[in-house]
């Protein structure tokens, strides 16, 4: 490595690529872990132990990150393309078309996307109340399903108004794929004979 002090941009790029490699490559991740622990030990060996009020805390279990399987995402793209021409629509340069022309295509895409979502997912609002209505959140509400915004102070019960009802997927019904299926082909080229 010739550049011992990379530029800021270089560091961003390094950070991002390292991030993904850590996620994808267990051995590399172990190496990074060793590097980090080793450096920390080398630079401030006694200070770390001294500054800590509690003696040598048990190593925090590192949160395991799930890697999203690309197959389901590719499959959904394929379905959206097949039934709603989604990729065609997004990939087309719309600068030169009038709103009316785009509207014609949007109708098709909307109808197809809606049919795809309804066929393969059961989606319902998280809160059944109308948007704008006031609700009270008791203690222990599900923070992953309800996001508090604005003047977030004090303690539960919280009272506020619904600005978005949220969406929750209750059921996913994606088609099953055979082993040989190449999910990366989301729309095959068509050749008319």
């Amino acid at each position, binding site marked *: 490595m010739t550049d011992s002090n990379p530029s800021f941009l270089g560091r961003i790029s390094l950070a991002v690529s390292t991030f993904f490699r850590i996620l994808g490559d267990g051995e590399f991740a172990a190496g990074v872990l060793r590097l980090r622990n080793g450096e920390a030990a080398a630079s401030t060996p006694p200070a770390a132990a001294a500054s800590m009020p509690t003696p040598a805390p048990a190593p925090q279990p590192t949160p395991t990150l799930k890697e999203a399987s690309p197959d389901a995402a590719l*499959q959904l793209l*394929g379905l959206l393309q*097949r039934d709603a*021409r989604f*990729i*065609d*629509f997004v*990939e*087309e340069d*719309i600068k030169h*078309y009038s709103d009316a*022309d*785009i509207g*014609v*295509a949007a*109708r*098709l*895409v909307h*109808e197809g996307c809606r049919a795809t979502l309804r066929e393969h997912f059961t989606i319902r609002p998280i809160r059944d109340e109308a948007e704008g209505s006031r609700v009270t959140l008791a203690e222990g509400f599900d923070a992953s399903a309800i996001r508090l915004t604005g003047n977030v102070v004090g303690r539960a019960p919280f009272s506020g108004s619904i600005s978005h009802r949220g969406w929750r997927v209750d059921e996913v*019904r994606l*088609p*099953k*794929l*055979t*082993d*040989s*299926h*190449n999910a990366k082909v989301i729309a095959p080229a*068509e050749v008319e004979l």
Partner: protein
Amino acid sequence: MSDARESRYAIGIDLGTTHCALSYVDTAASDGEQTSEGVLPIAQLTGPGAIDNLDLLPSFLYLPHPDELSSGDLHLPWTGERGFAVGEFARSRGAATPIRLVSSAKSWLCHPGVDRRAAILPNDAPPEVARVSPLESSVRYLTHLREAWDHAHPDAPFAQQDITVTIPASFDPAARELTAEAAEAAGYGRMTLLEEPQAALYSWIQKSGGQWRKQVEVGDIILVVDVGGGTTDLSLIAVIEREGNLELHRVAVGEHILLGGDNMDLALAHGVARKLAAQGTQADAWQLRALTYACRSAKETLLSDPATDTVPLVVPSRGSKLIGGSIRTELTRIELTQTILEGFFPQVDSAARPVSRARAGLTQLGLPYAQDAGITRHLAAFLGRQVGALAELEGLRDAAANANANANASVSANPGAQDASFLHPTAVLFNGGVFKSPLLVERIMGTLNNWLAAEGAAPARLLEGADLDLAVARGAAYYGYVRRGRGVRIRGGTARAYYIAIESAMPAVPGLEPPVQALCVAPFGMEEGTEAELPAQEFGLVVGEPVHFRFFGSSVRRQDQVGTLLDFWGPEELQELEEIQATLPAAGRTAGEVVPVKLHARVTEAGTLELEAMPRGTDERWKVEFDVRGNANA
């Protein structure tokens, strides 16, 4: 009923022209009229190598080119051996390559002009495509359903369950037998046939959970109007009283009408394509298909929402330029009304009859679609032809007469009224997806009630709460359940009497066909598992040589008994069916010997008509075959 052979599930299969469905009743969890039922989501290919579970299995078969798909693209959860696709993938793939797509196999199965066991489909395939027979494609759909069930229910093998397969009420004996043959070839061990309009009524009864007795009464004549994707099927079912119980009796079925919802979509699409052509845009075959698809959903919107007057139609471009290449047009309510309401459901009077024009000299070999698209005219003809259908029915007339005495004497509730020009239904049950539209329901009810009012009869009521899409499969499963004696059954037996032609003993006149008489061999209303009497007449069969008989059916001659000989009949009375053919094997006889035989009819437990030749003085029985090779004079 604790027969050890009783299966846990009663399975009903709707083998439709455009879709199949499988429903079941879990008899272990059902009690009386409270049944535990479900619809099997059918695992099928929805794309290359993609399997999904859908409630309906589209009745399409795709025969791919060997290089067209990669290996594994046709794999199913239970087999990797298939060289063809059925279901949703077949339908969508075949839309772009119609020369390899088999569709409407059911209509071909009952097409008297073709050999149903010959590999003739797809009809317009080039020589290198290995075609299949109408029978074989039905076998493939039925096999797929069996395998999908076995995959989902490994603990309850399909072959050990009671299976009911539905057929149009208008199917002739040959088409019924072919369906039974297809089911047997597909591994359906315990199979019974059921007419679709009856299945629709069974489903309605089941859905009412016992309340149906409050919605109909003795003397009611229920008209079932079943408009499927490819066929229109009409039946009349009377509510009678026997030994204090309500009984349902199917009294008449309509002709075979090859006309359905798909014809409506196609008619709309052609109308829109003409409009586009007038604006200078010529739709190609691919765009016309896309247009048909767009018209279907536009039709559903317009028919279900009276407030909408136009629905935009967008035909996407075929290439990846979506915005630049799409065609935009619209379907207006006026166009819809002209095409669907006036074209398919015109307001006619009860004396109207379907127009049949002479076929052009050279017709392409294709499906014999109904020549008159007016479903209301077909309905008028059916009710007119069946005006006397109730004359012989016991348990109805007394009740109707009582009702008549109680009500205003001038308002005739009696369907057997002398002055009626057509049979008066008192209630109507609809089946088929097109009747999700209240407009179409209203149009038929309005037309029918006009006819009734013109003859001073009370208006017919609409039987509400039908399940329009899955009623046939559900009703079939329920029928399998009530056959075990756990609910009301629809009686009625065969809806036709059957005749064979015999030549009169008369000197031949040059240039004239010898006059024929029709000998009744099977009377009207034979129930499953019953045998007709043995006729007195004998025929000479030449041993080792096939002998052909012309064969006729009548949907109106209810009184004829076995042995009745007709000299004259009207064109409405007897319809010629395919020939039947008997061959007496040479075993134990000398070839060429003439053996006198009697023809004996029976209806099997499965619901097919069987004719047997019984040589004199023996108890041998030789099966007489329906000739399904398409050489009838149809």
